[in-house]
């Protein structure tokens, strides 16, 4: 199955499960959880089902396009189901079958792996799902988001699309994946992997990025005061990405690092509270 068909198959499968098929959110982020369709929508107690593919940027994981398994930017397929249905494990397994994975012929394991995002003030309990020893999905019952205990517990499924594609196509190198019949993953992304690695590890200007962080933080705070949750949240995302960039650049000491995390988390908490406040009035 081609890379793009994996996405299409999952879109179709989850559409049939009543998910809103949403689009990626156009601000840099480290994981699909940061998309407003997950972060903000899990806060209130209204039912919500959404699914979308999300490009996720992790400067720390950049490898100059030389590592066959690691990428600065990879694609997640994200499903959020609120409330978590009682048969969500079965629903998930059926989605693997939809991708052509015959469960009878493979060893599927749900291994304890609890998830936490210190910057989002979010955590949950769940598993990493492994097929024949290969981790392909993170499966989490959220308990807290933005530091707020959730009233209605959602489940989040995060598929690692490249891993699944490598598994299905039997490839050892991510850049050899067939995106379509005649275009490889490497054709699409190899150059940007190299360039962003150069940028993250060697060329990014730490002092300028620190200033950026300050500005983004201030702007987010200002928008929170104006009770505009969406721009505030966008600037929070920019803070989070800038922090990841500084971290990869090796520009932060251990305590500085902790301080940056705390600052982003504090914005996340305020944005979450503001979202709920606005939501209640509607």
């Amino acid at each position, binding site marked *: 199955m081609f890379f793009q068909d994996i996405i299409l198959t999952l879109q179709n499968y989850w559409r049939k499960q009543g998910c809103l098929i949403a689009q990626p959110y156009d601000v840099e982020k480290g994981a699909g959880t940061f998309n407003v369709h997950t972060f903000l929508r899990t806060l209130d107690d209204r039912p919500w089902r959404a699914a979308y593919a999300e490009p996720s940027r992790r400067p720390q994981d950049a490898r100059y396009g030389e590592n066959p398994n690691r990428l600065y930017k990879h694609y997640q397929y994200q499903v959020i189901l609120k409330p978590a249905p009682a048969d969500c494990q079965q629903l998930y397994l059926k989605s693997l079958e939809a991708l052509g994975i015959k469960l009878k012929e493979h060893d599927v*394991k*749900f291994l304890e792996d609890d998830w936490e995002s210190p910057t989002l003030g979010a955590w949950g309990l769940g598993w990493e799902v492994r097929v*024949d020893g290969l981790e392909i999905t993170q499966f989490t019952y959220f308990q807290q988001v933005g530091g707020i205990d959730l009233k209605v517990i959602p489940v989040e499924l995060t598929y690692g699309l490249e891993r699944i594609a490598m598994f299905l196509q039997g490839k050892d190198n991510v850049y050899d994946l067939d995106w379509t019949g005649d275009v490889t993953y490497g054709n699409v992304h190899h150059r940007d992997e190299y360039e962003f690695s150069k940028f993250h590890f060697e060329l990014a200007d730490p002092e300028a990025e620190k200033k950026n962080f300050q500005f983004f933080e201030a702007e987010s705070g200002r928008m929170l005061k104006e009770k505009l949750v969406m721009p505030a949240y966008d600037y929070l995302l920019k803070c989070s990405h800038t922090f990841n960039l500084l971290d990869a650049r090796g520009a932060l000491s251990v305590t500085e690092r902790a301080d940056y995390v705390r600052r982003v988390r504090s914005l996340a908490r305020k944005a979450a509270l503001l979202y709920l406040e606005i939501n209640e009035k509607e």
Partner: protein
Amino acid sequence: MKKNDFLLELGVEDFPARFVEKTRLELKDKMAGILNREKITFENIEAGGSTRRFWILVKNLASKSAGKDEVIPGPPERIAYADGKPSPALEGFLKKNNGNPEDVSIEEQGKEKRAILRRTVPGRPAADILEKEIPALIRSLSFPKQMRWPESDFLFARPIRSILAFHGRKMIRVHTAGIKSGQYSSSLSAKLRVNSAEDYFKNWPSRSVFLKKEDREKKFYQTLTEKEKKTRGRLVRDRELLDELLELNENPQAVLGTFKEKYLALPAPVIVTVLRHHQKYFSFEDDRGRILPYFLAVIEKNPSCAKIVKTMERVVQARLEDALFFFKNDSDKNIDYFLEKLKGMIYQEKLGSLYDKTERIAKLTIEIARDYFPQSGIDAALLGRTALLSRFDLATSLVYEFPELEGTAGEIYALEFGETPEIASGIRTFRQFPQTPATLALFVADKIDTLLSSFILEKIPTGSEDPHGLRKEATLLLSKVLESGRNLRIDKIVSAAARLMGKEVPSSLPEFLKSRLELLLKDMDFSYDEVAAVLAEEETLDPVLFSRKLEAIKKIRKEEADFEALLTGFRRARNILTQAGKKGLSIPDRSDPSLFVEEAEKKLARDAEELKEEVEGHIGKSDYYSALKRLVHLRPDIDLFFDKILIMGEDAAQTANRLALLKKVISLFAHIGDLGRIVESRKNPEQQS
């Protein structure tokens, strides 16, 4: 009475493997507790589990609980009846207790006659009791990490998705967390209809779900033999890993994979750790302990599926390729390169880099070795080098990628870079198994530096908050020192560490360490009052010294009946001195033999003087048991003294002289502790039971 087997099964979403054994035992104990309390007889209880289910089997459970006789005292006879008829008081009493007038009799109780309700409460159906008790049992379980899910109104490790409860063929109606007990039990790929315990234990194994761990283990070994043969070597045994895999796989099958020989260039511990930690796979070795290019995985599917092994091999290859890349990368460097890198790695803001920390530790380690192990033939230069290299592997890319290799990687690289085997093994062993005086010194220096720097930066544990795990660090420090049996003055070492940092010891640190030691000693089965007595008003902190004193006290209390009486005298003497102090009486430093009048005081003074040297001799040799044994001999003297002598007499000089004598007697005990804090045996709650 009718008896039948009772089955309870909780079907859960994949539990953390590490919780399974504890949960299985807790379920079994609590179920037995319920049945005993409710007086429902049974033959025995068995419980089992895996990451997907927990089951309890109660053999021959009675269908009803045993009845019980009740006696409830009611109102006195004089108000129970009016004109020979039950009064409102009696009627109220009966109504409250749901009693019948026929069951009331008048009986003598104490000084008066009362209406007494006597009746036999019949047994209740077991089904009714279980219906109510099982949800409570499920709720009562707790886990180190817990969650909620939409249907739950309590916390649990993972969602519960099905409940089976059968007594014989009768279904017990259990309702909890949005689930009603039903007829289906499931595995990830199969569903089984169940009508009784018998069905359950017969039908699951026939569908290759093995409910008992011992059966799964057998199954595993059956499939292992052939694989082991193929490798011409043997499996590197790992009980912890096997236990985990047996919880995760209800039908465990061993499958064998291989990897390219080029990865054998990696040191054996690196290969074993990478396979185990990341993939939960076993390694193989030949008869000379060399690693073979095979791994063993445990799965639940038909192991003939070649595709499964292929993917596993691909993942293993990627992992080993990473490890080899980092290993080669590091091996091209040298020790100085990594030490230089440590300088750029901040340990704690304001207290410098990791390199600064290792330099401090090196100095402190040498001081400890010099002060406490002068006879151990430690080479200070060599030990200093070990300490300086104690953290260099944190700068390697191998440890950055595989943090679980910390220490192991240190040893490997140190050898690679030409350090001596002694230094190399010291780098690994001091963290967990400080068995030689040299590694113990390094271990202590390292832990004390960590604690001290955190306290200086005011990262102090409060209440339930201990983000830096300092309580655990302190407990580890003290327990390893206790295990070593060596006298180390932790308080002095802390001061030395502070001096090396150019800082003061934060006032809360000694108290913190003392309270950790107190807890540790109590966990070692010393009673709280003895621990309090030994630690009281003690400013020094020599854990081994305290444990020796406690052992002596424990032994003497067991052997010498007179010891308790001696303590009574001791407490009395101490009270008198306290009161004298309050009255502002001055007490001379030593008593004057010429001022004693009575024989009782003369004798006590003589005997105490005689004992003094001997007791102090024992104390000097840390032989607290012999010291206490001698002190017990003073008991008749002390008893006689309090019997015959009026301490606060008319003559002020004589009174002061007697107080001086008491002070001296008490000072004999002071070497051991404030024995007045020891609670008399019959009042000691820990010894009561």
